[in-house]
């Protein structure tokens, strides 16, 4: 039971840490962005927060992340507001943010480099752009043909043009988030 509690503390601290890091970097953090950042930390950097993501039309989503964000907010680790001007949510650190992070300092230390990378590579993107990129990472598998990946992403997200998907795939490859794609000999 104690192990379960420690896992919870780690998850809450992870959310508090992302909220704080985005605030420090003067980046906007919404609920969608938080979902996708945690997904990328788990999938691309092996950060083991124990969240199980499912793909939806709006990209990889985990209900436990949404719920944990509510708990962190109730604990005072984050403040969530709806921004009528921007038309979306904004998450800022709350008064207990430091306290929540300190409870799992060892866990957070182990992921600081990964969080820096993800913040740098994805922090400035819109929710829509993050949704596309996290969907690509979700669907990509080593040994898959590039064309096949682009088609699969287009099936899931038909409003993104294949050219835009191809550009995002190239960007993710160059940054090392996906690898092992094969070129289709028919192209």
């Amino acid at each position, binding site marked *: *039971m*104690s192990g*379960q*509690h420690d*896992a*919870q503390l780690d998850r*809450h601290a992870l959310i508090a840490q992302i909220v704080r890091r985005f605030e420090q970097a003067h980046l906007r953090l*919404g*609920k*969608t962005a938080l979902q996708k950042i945690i997904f990328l930390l788990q999938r691309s950097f092996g950060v*083991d*927060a*124990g*969240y*199980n993501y*499912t*793909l*939806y*039309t*709006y*990209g990889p*989503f985990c*209900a*436990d992340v*949404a*719920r944990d*964000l*509510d*708990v962190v907010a*109730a*604990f*005072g*680790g984050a403040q969530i507001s*709806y921004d009528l001007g921007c*038309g*979306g*949510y904004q998450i800022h650190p709350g008064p*207990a943010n430091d*306290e*929540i992070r300190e*409870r799992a300092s060892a866990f957070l230390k182990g992921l600081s480099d990964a969080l820096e990378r993800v913040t740098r590579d994805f922090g400035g993107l819109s*929710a*829509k752009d993050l*949704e596309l990129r996290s969907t690509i990472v979700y*669907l990509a598998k080593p040994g898959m043909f590039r064309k096949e990946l682009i088609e*699969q992403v287009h*099936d*899931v*997200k*038909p*409003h993104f043009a294949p050219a835009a998907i191809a550009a995002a795939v190239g960007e993710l490859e160059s940054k090392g988030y996906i690898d092992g794609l094969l070129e289709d000999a028919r192209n």
Partner: protein
Amino acid sequence: MPRRDKEVRCPIHGFVRLTPFEQDIIDHPPYQRLRRIRQLALTEMVYPGATHTRFEHSLGVMHVASLMFDQVRSEIKRIGPANANFTSDDLDKARVMVRLAALLHDVGHAPFSHAGEEVMPTIRGQRRRHDHEDYSAAIIRQFFADVIDNHPDNVHRITANELCEFLGQGRPPKNMLFWRELIKGQMDADRADYLLRDSHHIGVAYGRYDLHRLIATLTVAPHPETEELSVAVEEGGIQTVEGLIIARYMMFTQVYFHHTRRAYDHHITEVLKFVLEQDYRSRGEQPSQTFLPPTAVDENQSRSNLERYLNWTDPVVWEMIDTGRAGPHGDLIRLRRHDRVVARTSATPTPKEVLSLQKDTLPMVADLGGWLDLADAAWYKFDKAGIFVTDGRKTYELPDRSAVVKGLEPVFQARVYVPLDREEKAKTKLQ
């Protein structure tokens, strides 16, 4: 002569209609096993009426999912959103897929439902345990492929593999992803059914809400942040959704997280660990306190693991409890001498309060067999995120349109339990 649809009676929805295709799936032995898995584990130790099974719930979910599907399909037709690229054939196939997914979504449950998930093995290299969804997918692939893939009524050529992908195990077939919301969303058919069904059998009114009004107000709208087509509720349906959320909140606090019910979840988990270990020993295998994993590198091994898993049902374990072969926790269950709460936090505590219970209070009674239970570790989690409301122009998350929902704090209560015969001693120590 073509076979006919059948209707079965349901205490919640009246009649549930089953096609011959669905009847054949239901008649398959791994499906019939759900008649022997109770929906709410040992909740009957507190609420004697809670003896309903995963079988009747699964039929109910299929019924509700169909109602939701038909409403959303009619809304897609009415509104004609630009990003809904469904052909008529896509929609017909999606309806069958949604019904089959709803029917089969719980087929992988362990004995005593969610309590049994505590003895599922961890996924290799991860912190997370397998859950019943992993077992459902593996069982569908191994045992239902023939009845699904080769059924003469399967006109849309749906495969067991596609069904698993639709249920969340990977990428669903083309144009099916949108419909996943009805099976695995924040306001899905599963929750819509279990709140009403659990309330009915338990005999409480907490879980009741207006299902038919809820369905009538379902529509489609762009996601508030990504603009993707999503299932939403019309503004006029806010009060109905509030009813659903409050029902879930009340069921969580009054039933699912009831202090005695949680004690029995703990005891039955310990029983399962004990009987599993005994089972491995009796086979001359390395003893373990978890089920075999749902998948293995070798297909035959996967099938063999699942065959053994499917032999475990509530009555099999009850027989061991009744005959004194389920270990000390089995005896506690048989004699109804469950552990008692000696300390707890408030329902919505501060992090300090929770930590103090774990670091200060628990060690004081550890030598008396004290253990900590967290509401957050409960399986029927209460949450309010991810339900969208639309006024026809813009989409919002429910808490932004509902002061009632916004005001509901997440429950994160923690409790310390000790065995009944040490309750007084523990209370004295903690004074």
